[in-house]
């Protein structure tokens, strides 16, 4: 407990870093993932903009990235990172990498949830002469909104978890704090308090997600 108090400033900073990493990753990764997910959904055979080539390429691309160990993935995209944000370490670098990783995960969740949308409503939109992109955004996504919100919540929790790996690259955050100031030092109070903080953040996000999903589902 004493040791926890000594590290309070670091803890505070870690909370800030976690919020920074998680929020940006969820928003940026969420948007990019939505776009990728829409491509996966729309180009699959028989779908709105069926395109075998694009579908296969994106499908493989998404699978290329997701299973690569985070350390290696982060190392691999370092050249890209230097161009994009000018650094390969620290909070921004981790945020950048996590956003990408989240995007690929989000894309699959979106794809899954959109597939459950009934073909009939899509036909109704096509019959009205709507453009495929407009159908995707104004019909398909809204129809799947409940599950999609829960999907984002799922990714949010996943990003909080992945952000624990931020420490590998000097990104800080609560996960890293819990490990380096806590479990690696066998300092359990630090672990408890930090993990509790993480869980509170996650529960808050989950409750918000559940609430919004319930509103969207109306059941």
């Amino acid at each position: 407990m004493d040791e926890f108090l000594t590290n309070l400033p670091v803890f505070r900073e870690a909370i800030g870093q976690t919020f920074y990493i998680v929020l940006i990753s969820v928003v940026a990764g969420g948007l990019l993932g939505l776009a990728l997910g829409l491509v996966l959904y729309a180009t699959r055979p028989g779908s709105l903009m069926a395109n075998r080539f694009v579908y296969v390429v994106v499908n493989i691309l998404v699978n290329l990235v997701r299973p690569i160990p985070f350390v290696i993935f982060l190392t691999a995209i370092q050249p890209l990172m230097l161009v994009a944000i000018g650094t390969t370490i620290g909070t921004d670098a981790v945020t950048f990498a996590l956003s990408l990783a989240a995007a690929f995960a989000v894309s699959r969740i979106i794809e899954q949830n959109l597939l459950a949308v009934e073909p009939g409503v899509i036909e109704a939109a096509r019959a009205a002469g709507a453009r495929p992109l407009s159908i995707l955004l104004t019909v398909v996504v809204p129809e799947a909104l409940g599950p999609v919100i829960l999907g984002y919540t799922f990714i949010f929790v996943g990003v909080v978890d992945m952000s624990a790996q931020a420490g590998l690259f000097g990104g800080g955050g609560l996960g890293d704090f819990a490990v380096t100031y806590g479990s690696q030092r066998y300092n359990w109070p630090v672990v408890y308090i930090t993990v509790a903080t993480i869980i509170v953040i996650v529960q808050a996000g989950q409750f918000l997600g559940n609430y919004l999903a319930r509103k969207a589902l109306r059941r």
Partner: protein
Amino acid sequence: TTSGDDDGGDATTVRIGVADASAPYWKTYQDLAKQRLNVTVNLVNFSDYSQPNPALKEKQLELNQFQHIQYLANYNATSGDDLQPIGATAVYPLPLYSLKFKTPQELPAGAKVAIPNDAINQARGLLVLQAAGLVTLKGGGTAFSSTADVESKKVDVVTLDASQTAGALQAGSVAGAIVNNNYATSAKLPRDNAIFQDDPASASAAPYVNIFTARKADKDNATYLKLAELYHDPAVEKGVQEANGNVAVLRTVSAADLQALLTTVQDQAVAAGKK
């Protein structure tokens, strides 16, 4: 004076990459740097050893302090970089712990022994086990041996993250474990349970001296040299010992000697890499 890339002017900020920023002595160190040298030290903590060197090379750090000569030589050899040591800190023995047995010989055949899984600690751990008579390594072993090089063994070697060997020992999952000092201290492993260790003072342990590392261009940078020296301020040294259960063997070696040693070890590494 030199400063971080982005902030110029008088206020000097130096970013040091470390792997144990949570240790209290770094706070002491930062305060002293501010007072004595008017340098703001920003610590960047890495939980993965593979990152601080590339980060230094990419000029995202001015210095790092987490590795020994052997690790740096290995890095330079494999990545083709030319990072240089500018100051020594300490040598840490790498002990074999056991909670049930008093000597290595008592370990029953087939008992599980945990060693760290990162390349350098793994090789060093295997060398310790070989010295303890528990395994024999291909070609007598090198600083690059891995579990794949174990030729004959009395015990079953398992590799774990360096931070996990102590825990595995305490949980009873292994009979013995090579535990780095910092983790042993954190895990409150009693010193008495170290049943074997390499000798930190011996010449053979020289490559395992921990160092401050800079880019080659900065190897004579006065501020950096002073920062390396600051590590040996009594207040800091005391903290280092506290953080490491009083087993650190503090070393002051001149930058030139360190750099010469690096050249030697690096040549060996290159040779090892070619074989």
